[in-house]
């Protein structure tokens, strides 16, 4: 099994985990709206997962780049750019004192991430199957897309 196939399997699982993470963020933010938790607890809870998510996503991006999977890389480029801008400006963490003010923005950002990771999940699934099927068929019959 080639490295590319292995990468797509890993990407599939990670997309699932990241999707679950984004959904968790959305639900935590709506819990804040309904007064189930306070801003400090929310900030502490979510901030532990912000950097791991960015690192995981960056890792996937770099692997796609190195292995020559251009479509997948281009798909992830916007999100990597967004994350880099946030880290450079030190804005990636949730600030307990500001979170009520910026709540709609955060919710929207996380909704978009949920949709994005969902699309990524299906794209990686598709790519993984194509890669695996192509590996086991002789050259003339391989599918190009």
């Amino acid at each position, binding site marked *: *099994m080639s490295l590319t196939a292995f990468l797509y399997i890993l990407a599939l699982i990670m997309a699932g985990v990241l999707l679950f993470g984004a959904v968790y963020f959305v*639900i935590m933010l709506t*819990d804040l709206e*309904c007064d189930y938790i306070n801003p400090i607890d929310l900030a502490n809870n979510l901030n532990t997962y912000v950097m791991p998510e960015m690192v995981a996503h960056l890792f996937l991006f770099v692997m796609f780049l190195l292995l020559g999977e251009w479509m997948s890389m281009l798909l992830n480029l916007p999100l990597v750019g967004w994350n880099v801008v946030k880290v450079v400006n030190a804005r990636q963490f949730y600030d307990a004192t500001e979170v009520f003010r910026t709540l709609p923005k955060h919710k929207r950002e996380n909704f978009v991430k949920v949709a994005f990771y969902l699309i990524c999940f299906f794209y990686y699934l598709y790519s993984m*199957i194509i890669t695996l*099927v192509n590996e*086991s*068929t002789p050259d003339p019959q391989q599918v190009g897309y």
Partner: protein
Amino acid sequence: MSSSGNSLQDPLNTTHRHSSEFVAHSKADNFRDGFTSDISSDDALAVRRRALAEVDNAKFGWFHVKACLVAGIGFFTDSYDIFAINLCSLIMGYVYYANAEGDAKNSTPTKIDMWIKGSTQLGCIIGQFVFGYLSDRLGRKRIYGVELIIIIVCTIGGSFAGNTARGLSVYWILFIWRFVLGIGIGGDYPVSAIITSEFATTKNRGAMIAAVFAMQGFGIVAAAIVSIIVLAAFKGAIDGDQQNLDYVWRIIMGLGAVPGIIALYFRLTIPETPRYTLDIENDAHKAAYDIKTTIGGSKDAAEDRSLLQPSTAQQARVQKPTWTEFYHHFKKWRNFKVLMGTSVTWFALDVAFYGINLNSSIILQAIGFSGKGTPYHELLKTSAGNIILNLLGTLPGYWVTVFTIDRLGRRTIQFIGFVVLLILFCILGFAYHQILDRSVAGFVVLFTLAQFFQNFGPNTTTFIIPSEAFPTRFRSTCHGISAASGKIGAVIAQLGFFQLKNRGGKNAFIPHLIQIFALFMLVGLIFTWFVPETKGKSLEELSEESERDE
């Protein structure tokens, strides 16, 4: 005050006796130390109403999502397992029948195949009856982890199945393991549904129960993905020696236990549902405490204090359901017709639901995903094809139901489902060969539409309605009865129709089978008339309606 509250709180009229006990005891207590704050029966009623209002009007939060996930793991495992056995049976053919002759080479014999697949369904029937009854009798919490433990143990056990030295082949051992697995899976149906239903908010109850059921869709996709990954990992070994496929099916089957193991802790530590504590155990304070610690929410301190006062005078008057009571309740046509409606509709649906899957191999061939070639190639393509098929029809159907059921209502969706299925099955049944010959794509589209409307339709609603439409003390038993009648339909479809499939030539009887399914859809449509619409009503309103005359 206590007499007017009777029908709401206490159908069997024990409150009268209660209140006099309260009054006597509280007088004695006050006389004794004057510090204890007892509740009179009026306060008990108010506490009950407040506690239930808190459950019913809670905002949708992480607690509800967690409840859906934990309850849904059973259904995830159920459909993972059904898909896994289809694939594993294929793989076992390559391992154990590699030396058979001619056509039978590399494939499990039909009879054995049929029994392996049907074993879980048979166990399910028993599990649904038994666990449905037990959860009403002993309480939801007491038995909730048990069926998941059975599922985990039997999944792992099945993946270690082997031949005995004399007599029983690996298929027999697997049959026994899967039969007991079925008992566990069957037990999951009523208990998970009732727990979700009793913890849910009135507004979102349909969506929550539907979301629990929708985990089935994920189970199929997960099973297909896992099988692709495991096959890919073993590719080299398989191409070298076909017997290495033995590892593959065992790993695929065993991995099904993993989500269950994760969810087990959460299941064992769930509090008892507030409605069971209130209605059957008559312990209002324990219920209020459980609600506070799980659903929570910020309320002012005064309410908190009164809700959380320990009950000093109240004896927990346990009001367990008995079969005599069951008989008297359902002797009335008004109550019996609901049970009959839910059971017959579920039965009618499952016959078609499990029967239509007999066609999936034809569909796969039609869309070019049943590869002939090396075992690896064929199995890979079968899994990939199944993913596509399920993502097209089944999965969207589940989720459309989740998002619309609280707006459209259960009966509406069930009617729509049965009508559309009736039409689709009539078309497919009477024009089977014409469609197949003329346009394969059309056939696939009709098939996918049928799967979509099964799930945006009776498959989900027949699961949701029994978990709402009965009074608390019978809710789980009746859900178990309805579910079991459904599974009886599934067994008939798998064991019975499977045999009929090849009458008159390979796959020649299938058009007639589909016509029979259309007939069952008509039956389901008619019996949908008997089930009540439960959208937007709290569980108390629904139980009260069935007690009205008493």
